[in-house]
């Protein structure tokens, strides 16, 4: 279990603060992710998990603190640039390109690293042909990896709920990220599907990706993650190995709603 070798730090979140008017959604949160690990980000509803995600992927601009990816600050960069640097994500409520096919969805992800523009496309220059082929092959490979290649030509909107979730992960992986952020990938899954998903997330990690996982389901989180960071009311209240977190009184209090001493 405790195999989190002190690898290189892929992502460092340093004293991250996010203020919306009078509301402090994130307050001085610091954590890091090592290369090749699965880090779980958990906490009760409204703890700031998704806000933290949004800050990491550039949707929100932090009001304080710093976020470094491979040692480089990403604060203030555009969202597509952050994706091109190597952070990809999925969404809590599925956001696929609904009227495009599954294959096209994944190819959009693969296009993140492509440079084909108007002229290459118009005159079918070698760049277009090479990138199109690459993108197509990679997309099919990922669809196969996710087990949904039979639906490649299906519209994203017509896939089953579970397949849509899988397609989102495939699309994120297609951007060739180093860090992949999954926002409640198991939401709406039944226990059997959750077990499958756990397997899948491990397989994703084994392919060399680093995973940041937001999840509600404690069993899933405990089973799949290497380390866990716990947020509550925008603050980090605990960090450690799954076993440590399980027995941490503050975490138990946060989840069971025992009166907490930190008023914020």
């Amino acid at each position: 279990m405790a195999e989190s070798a002190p690898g290189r730090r892929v992502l460092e979140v340093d004293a991250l603060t996010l203020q919306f008017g009078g509301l402090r959604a994130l307050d001085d949160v610091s954590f890091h992710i090592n290369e090749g690990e699965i880090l779980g980000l958990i906490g009760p509803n409204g703890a700031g998990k998704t806000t933290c995600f949004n800050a990491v992927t550039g949707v929100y601009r932090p009001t304080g603190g710093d976020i470094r990816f491979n040692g480089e600050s990403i604060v203030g960069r555009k969202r597509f640039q952050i994706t091109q640097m190597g952070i990809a994500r999925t969404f809590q409520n599925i956001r696929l390109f609904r009227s495009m096919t599954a294959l096209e969805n994944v190819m959009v992800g693969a296009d993140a690293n492509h440079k084909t523009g108007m002229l290459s496309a118009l005159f079918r220059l070698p760049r277009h042909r090479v990138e199109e082929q690459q993108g197509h092959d990679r997309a099919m490979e990922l669809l196969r990896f996710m087990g949904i290649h039979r639906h490649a030509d299906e519209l994203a909107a017509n896939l089953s709920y579970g397949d849509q979730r899988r397609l989102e992960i495939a699309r994120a992986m297609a951007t060739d990220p180093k860090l992949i952020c999954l926002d409640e990938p198991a939401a709406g899954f039944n226990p059997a599907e959750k077990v499958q998903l756990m397997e899948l997330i491990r397989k994703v990690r084994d392919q060399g990706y680093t995973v940041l996982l937001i999840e509600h389901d404690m069993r899933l989180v405990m089973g799949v993650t290497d380390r866990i960071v716990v947020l509550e009311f925008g603050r980090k209240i605990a960090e450690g190995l799954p076993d440590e977190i399980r027995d941490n009184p503050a975490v138990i209090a946060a989840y069971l709603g025992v009166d907490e001493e930190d008023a914020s």
Partner: protein
Amino acid sequence: MTNKSSAGFRQRIIALPKPAKIALWVALAVLAYALPLLEPPLISTPGTDFGGVLFTVTVYCMVALGLNIVVGYAGLLDLGYVGFYAIGAYTAAILTSFHASWPLLLAIPVAVAVTMVSGVLLGAPTLRVRGDYLAIVTLGFGEIIRLTAVNIEWLGAAKGISAIQRPPSIELFEIPHLFWDGAVPLVDPDDTTTFLEFGVLDQIPYYWLGLTVVIVLLFADRLIKDSRVGRAWEATREDEDAAELMGVPTFRFKLLAFSTGAFIGGLAGALYASRQSFINPMSFLLLFSILFLAAVVVGGQGNRWGVIVGAIVVAYLPERFREFSEFRVLVFGLALMLLSSFRPEGLLPPRRTVRAKQLEHEIEALEEGQLEEEEAARG
């Protein structure tokens, strides 16, 4: 029923071997080129010059293809497209007649470039707003262009610009027209079109020019759509935030869509100005923006053949049925209402939309079936 048979027809076309398909397309193109010479009885317009009507149709086709990139592919509602059309026309007019006397073939690329730049200038600040706001800003843009033309003497003011140059003529040979005695086609040796003389009387060479441009645009449209650029546009239309987070520089691609649309609009405007040889601000009323948009929406936005059909409907039908011209707007409005309730996706929606709809219906039918079963079980 009609849906099924058209789907069957499509299947049969798709199943044809490639050479047969190409032959079919070539035959279709030849027919299109020959149309004004054949003057087929029911299709030909009585009372108005058929060649001239067909040229107008090709201009609408160009405009619809350009606007389709903006509205259909990238999902940017542009209500001021006539502004680009006007910029193209005015640039061509100024360069060939009003302030200089360039040859038209030199003026057209400049007109197109100027229009493209204007597209970027308009897009750069406004494409940051979304949806309805963009529609209002572009609506304003179209009117600003027209009012500028009305009020500035240098642009000919309200009386416009005349004597715009025609494309250079190469008079090679004469092609006779057909004329129809009932259902019998006869060759009319007195009625001929000179290949290729761009004159005042015979509009057919203009139609050939316009048709050629439309065909080139159709090819280009297809090449761009089936590429990273086309996918980026669609992803942006579907979910801009998600697209951005998947590495699509959405703003850049929206600007690209806007300037590509402007390019085509400017080209259409320049050709229109040359054919008319006279333009004034009345040629660029807001009404035209709405007609252009109607062509795209009626035909089926997002489908290049759909918008061609839409352009034909909007430009050709009113000319063909001139006798009802007093009721033109009434009939048009009625048709639009019927369309929106019976075919909200347009006459020829993109294939994907058709497929998605069918699946939705199937699922709905299934669900209804289940409900009925449950009720039956309960009862």
